[in-house]
């Protein structure tokens, strides 16, 4: 198996607080991995570290692109990491609210298109063609997340579940090899969660995608993921298949508290 993402000894300090403590994590090709743990365990901080929003105190992070080359992510800017092939969604939906649904996805194509100011002003044939290509590809992505009929609607007018799906479509537009989902099922009803699960599975097949997700919905985590990492107070306390994790005494303790104190 080839690792898409390899993180070793990742440490993130905020002042005196150690938010991440020697986190090791590997994700293989086409693997769905879940990151779970109580609130404040450092899951979102981990996302922010590997996407370049925070600069980690120490540790190494490697992303392997489909061509086989491994890239060190340390010191890279967020947009460079996205261009390499790692895309994310946000815990508290961060769409571009005043723009249309289609435009939201088109933004995701930014790093795979080239037109600059001069081309924008001259509008030569190549630029127009590139633009139409962006529009059509974005529309096709909207079809895969079942939002095509709303393409000309303003993003903020979409219902909650649809906004989450739009965020996924927007992330997919950057053509990632690794997709990071931060609580994608939060606030969804069981029906929507089920559809989301199907969507993630089908995206993996059609796009050769590896997925890392943070999620609190345990039934979804257990049925969807190939492997699970558990974090507590910034440290990884366990990892393994869903079966192993559900039987792990450390994990049960972390979630239910010490039996003596309960």
């Amino acid at each position: 198996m080839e690792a898409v993402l390899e993180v070793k000894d990742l440490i993130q300090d905020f002042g005196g607080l150690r938010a991440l403590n020697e986190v090791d994590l590997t994700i293989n090709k086409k693997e769905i991995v879940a990151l779970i743990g109580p609130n404040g365990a450092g899951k979102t901080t981990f996302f922010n570290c590997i996407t370049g929003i925070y600069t980690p105190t120490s540790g190494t992070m490697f992303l392997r692109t489909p061509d086989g080359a491994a890239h060190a992510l340390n010191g890279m800017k967020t947009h460079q990491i996205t261009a390499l092939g790692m895309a994310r969604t946000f815990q508290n939906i961060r769409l571009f609210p005043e723009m249309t649904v289609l435009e939201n996805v088109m933004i995701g194509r930014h790093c795979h298109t080239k037109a600059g100011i001069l081309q924008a002003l001259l509008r030569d044939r190549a630029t127009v063609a590139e633009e139409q290509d962006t529009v059509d590809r974005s529309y096709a992505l909207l079809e895969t997340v079942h939002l095509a009929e709303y393409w000309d609607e303003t993003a903020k007018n979409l219902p909650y579940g649809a906004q989450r799906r739009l965020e996924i479509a927007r992330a997919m537009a950057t053509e990632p090899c690794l997709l990071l989902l931060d609580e994608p099922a939060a606030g969804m009803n069981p029906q929507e969660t089920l559809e989301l699960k199907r969507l993630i599975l089908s995206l993996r097949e059609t796009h050769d995608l590896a997925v890392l997700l943070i999620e609190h919905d345990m039934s979804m985590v257990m049925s969807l993921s190939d492997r699970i990492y558990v974090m507590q107070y910034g440290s990884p306390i366990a990892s393994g298949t869903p079966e192993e994790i559900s039987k792990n005494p450390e994990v049960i303790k972390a979630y239910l508290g010490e039996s003596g104190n309960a």
Partner: protein
Amino acid sequence: MQRIFKALVAALWFMVLCAPIMGLLLLPDGTASFRWQRLAVLGTGIFFASLLWQWYFEKKERGERLFGGKAQAEEPVHRESLLRNKSFQRISLACVCAFMIAMPFIPGINSIYQITIWISALIYVMLALGLNIIVGLAGQLVLGYAAFYAIGAYTYGLLYQFFGLGFWVCLPIAGIVTVLCGLALGFPVLRLRGDYLAIVTLGFGEIVRLVLINWDSVTNGARGVSGIPRPALFGCPMNMQWSTTYLYYMSFLAVVVTIVVITRLKNSRVGLALQAMREDEIASEAMGINLTQVKLTAFALSSAWAGFAGVLFAAKTSFINPSSFTFWESAMMLSMVVLGGMGSILGVTLGALILVLAPEYLRAFADYRMLLFGATMVVMMIFRPQGLVTGERRHYRISALERKGD
């Protein structure tokens, strides 16, 4: 009844509030007079304004639209408005262009005085559209835009004074100089949040103005630069009427170019990136947008436009001094953008025309101009923060849908 009581209280409150400043007048001989009439007028005005205010907010609280019925939760997906109707667009555009081209020859409004007013209106349209790039599209609140306008004007003025360079040579030079200044300001402020950016750019504007005043040996201080020539047409001598008309057409052309450039920019890949940055910086960075590059592009383009407008301004007035480039100019340009609707090209153009032409043609209001600007900014933010023109959306052609339609 309760509303009337509230309105009465508000009226009384404002009358007391304004009593010293509006009521008291100290005369030079050491006596004082009290102007009751003014306060009475004010009280009456506030009474009715307060009724309106209450009516509006009560309605808003019930979730109703200002006019007619309840607001719908979701708007229909495909809205047909007049603004999106293609043939209506074409006809009105043709009418406006025809009027603008014929304007210097329409008897009654073709005096030099009138044409000059229209030239300055056109220059402000350019400025407002340029500011719209950075404020409206990119969402970066810049309060020192007049500084770039000044730099453009002084580039022409000083290059003429010291080296005798003409209009057409100075136009591109001013563009380059202002772009460099825009980058010089833009680079350090990349990381600043909205309100801090506003203050820094305001400070930059003041620094430029103060330097222009104090650097006497070069800029000639507060007295300014005079005798700046108007652009020549292949070296033909022109009388005042003709050179004004010529400048008018040039400004009109400049505005047309500006509108074309900015429309194309807005609809391009870079334009989309700018708007994404306005909506959410972190999300747009996570979508692969290089914020540094995009922000600097916006700064550079925006300041270049102010530079071009500055050169036109210097050519129009043939005399420039620092007092033309105060904070109030920046504030006025900002209110044009805000009034028109941030990001909307049609809106900002209308906003600029209204704010320049209204005080000129409604002489009674000329004194109250700045007062009304200020009030307009507050009122717009409260009642219509999106500006006059909204819903200006680009129409995309989707190949998949068109095939289905065939």
